[in-house]
C-alpha cells in the first residue's frame, strides 16, 4: 500500500524490530491534518510503537516518517515540542502534587503556569491540583495526563489507549474532551482496541494488525470498500407482503431478523423496490438503510484480511 496523500503524520514503509520481535512491519498510513485518526487494532498490533516512532522516542529501522513536515529522527526535539502524548497508564511523580507535576510539564515545554492551570480547568482536574498525585484515582490521572499533554497547545496530539482502566462515565467524559480538542483543529491520533471508543469520533481509521496497516481511510470510504453492498431494513404491518422482495430485481439477499434485512446491488434501486412492494399490497412501516457501525466494519475488514480468506 503506497500512501499518496499529505497529512500531519505520514508513515511510509516503516519497520521497527526489537530483537526477533517485529513490532512494526512496513507500516504505511497518513493521519490527515485537523482530523481524528484512530489506530484500531488488537493488543500487540504495534500501536504504542507507532506513537513512539511518531515522536522520535524510538528510531525506525527502515522507512520514512514525517510529522508536520519534519523527520522525527533528525528533528525530534522540534517534533516533540509541537506534539503532546498521553501514554497508556500515564505516570507522574506521585509524591508531588498535581500542580507540581503540571509546573514541571510547563517548564519542559516552555509553557506558562497560567497555561497549566487553564489546561487543568479544561479537563476539570483543577480542584485536585493541591493533592499528591499518588492519591489520584485512575480517572483523575487520565484527566491530569490530558491536561499535561495539551499544556503547550500542541499541533499533534497522540493518545494511546486514553480510556484504559476508566469506568464508563469517566471514559465518556474523556472521549467528549477529545472531541472538543478535535473541533479546535488539532490533529489527533487515538490508539485503541475498543471499537465503541472509536465509533463516532474517527474521521480516519487505520486498521492495524501485527505491526502492519491492513486498511486505512475515512469510515464511510472503508464501508464502501469492505461493505460495498448496501443493506436496507424493510418492515410492514402485513409482513407476509414483504416475501416477494427476495425475488425483485436488484436484491441480492434477504434475511428475517424481526424485519427484513435486504442486501441490495445499489441503493438507487430503493424507490422502485418500495413501489413494487406497495403495488403488491404491502403496508410499509419502515425503510431504513443501515449505516455499518465501526464494529461491523472492523470485523468485516478483519475477515477480508484473514490469510485463508485472501488465499481463497
Amino acid at each position, binding site marked *: 500500500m503506497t500512501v499518496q496523500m499529505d497529512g500531519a503524520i505520514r508513515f511510509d514503509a516503516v519497520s521497527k524490530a*526489537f*530483537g526477533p520481535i517485529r513490532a512494526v512491519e512496513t507500516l504505511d498510513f497518513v493521519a490527515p491534518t485537523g482530523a481524528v485518526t484512530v489506530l484500531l487494532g488488537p493488543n500487540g498490533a504495534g500501536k504504542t510503537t507507532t506513537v*513512539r516512532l511518531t*515522536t*522520535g*522516542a*524510538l*528510531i525506525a529501522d527502515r522507512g520514512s516518517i514525517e510529522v508536520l513536515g519534519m523527520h522525527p529522527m533528525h528533528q*525530534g*526535539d*522540534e517534533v*516533540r*515540542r509541537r*506534539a503532546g*502524548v498521553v*501514554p497508556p*497508564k*500515564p*505516570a*507522574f*511523580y*506521585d*509524591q*508531588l502534587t498535581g500542580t*507540581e507535576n503540571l509546573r*514541571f510539564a510547563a*517548564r*519542559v*515545554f*516552555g509553557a506558562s503556569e497560567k497555561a497549566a492551570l487553564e489546561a487543568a480547568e479544561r479537563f476539570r482536574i483543577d480542584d485536585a491540583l493541591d493533592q499528591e498525585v499518588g492519591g489520584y484515582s485512575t480517572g483523575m490521572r487520565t484527566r491530569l495526563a490530558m491536561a*499535561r499533554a495539551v499544556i503547550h497547545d500542541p499541533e499533534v496530539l*497522540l493518545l494511546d489507549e486514553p480510556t484504559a482502566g476508566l469506568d464508563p462515565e469517566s471514559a465518556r467524559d474523556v472521549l467528549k474532551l477529545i472531541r472538543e480538542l478535535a473541533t479546535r483543529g488539532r490533529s489527533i491520533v487515538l490508539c485503541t482496541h475498543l471499537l465503541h471508543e472509536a465509533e463516532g469520533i474517527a474521521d480516519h481509521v487505520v486498521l492495524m494488525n501485527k505491526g502492519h496497516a491492513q486498511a486505512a481511510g475515512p469510515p464511510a470510504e472503508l464501508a464502501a470498500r469492505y461493505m460495498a453492498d448496501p443493506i436496507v431494513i424493510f418492515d410492514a404491518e402485513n409482513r407476509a407482503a414483504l416475501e416477494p422482495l427476495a425475488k425483485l430485481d436488484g436484491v441480492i439477499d434477504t434475511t428475517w431478523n424481526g424485519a427484513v434485512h435486504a442486501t441490495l446491488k445499489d441503493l438507487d434501486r430503493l424507490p422502485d423496490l418500495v413501489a413494487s412492494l406497495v403495488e403488491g399490497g404491502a403496508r410499509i412501516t419502515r425503510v431504513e438503510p443501515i449505516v455499518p457501525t465501526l464494529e461491523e466494519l472492523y470485523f468485516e475488514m478483519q475477515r477480508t484480511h484473514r490469510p485463508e480468506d485472501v488465499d481463497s
Partner: protein
Amino acid sequence: MSWAHIRAVAGVDLRRLFQSKDYWIPLVMMASLFFVIIPFFVLSVISSLEQSQFVDQLTDIVGNLPSSVNQAVQGETPTARASYVVAVFLLAPIAIIVPLTISAAVGSNAIVGERERGTGEYLAHSPITTSEIYVGKLISSLIPGYLATFVGFGIYAVVVNITVGPALGGWFFPTPGWIILILWVIPPFIAIALSIILRLSARVRSAAAAQQASSLVTLPVIILSYSVAAAVIAAPGASGIWVGAVAWIAAIFLTIRGAKKLKRERLLGVASDV
C-alpha cells in the same frame, strides 16, 4: 543545551527527594554519624588523654611523615599534636565517603527509576534532549551528597574547634587543605563516580540491580578518593589544585561521554540490551 530543561529535570528530582522522609532521614543520620558523632567522641577521648600508648604511637607516626607534613602539625604537647593529626588528617577523608555514598544511592536509581515509574515515557516524548536529562540527573544526584558534605563540614569544623581548639590556642580549623578538598576536589570526584553510575542506571533492568552495580563502582572510587583526599590535606597548595584540576577534566570528559551515550529508548525500557 537548555539550562531551563536541566533545571526542570534536576528540580523535580530534588523536590521529590527532599519531600520524602524515607530519603532524607537516613541522609541526615549518616552525615551526623560521620561528621558529628564519631569525630566528637574520638576527639573528646584523645583530647582528654594526658599521656597514653596511642598518643605515643601517633607521635611516632607523625615523626616519620615527610617534614612538610610534620611541620604542619600544630600543638605544643603530644596530646595536642595527636588531636590535631586525628582531626585534620585521619578523619578528613571521611568527607569523601559521605557524598559518594549518598550520591551513589540517588544516582543509581536516577534513570532506571524513571523507567520503573513510567515517567521515563513522558521524558522520552518531551523536547528535553537526552544530554539535558543526563546532566539534570547528575546534578540532582550530586547536590544531596555535596550539600550533606558542605553542611557536615561546617558542623565538623565547629566540633573540631570546640574539642581540639583549646589545646591549640584557639580556632584553627579548617586548614587550607580542607578548604581545597571541600571546594575543589570533592565535587569532581562525585561527578566521576556519578557519570559511571548513571550509565549503569540507564543500562540495568531494575533499581535493585542498579544499586548492586553502583556499589561495585563506588567502592574503588571511594578508595581512590580517600587516598587523594588524605594526600591533598597532608600537602595542600599546588598539588591539591592540580589533583582537583585533573579530576575536573576527567569528570567533564566522562559526563560528556555519558550524556552522548544515553539513548531515548532506554527511558522506555525497550533498548535491545535492557
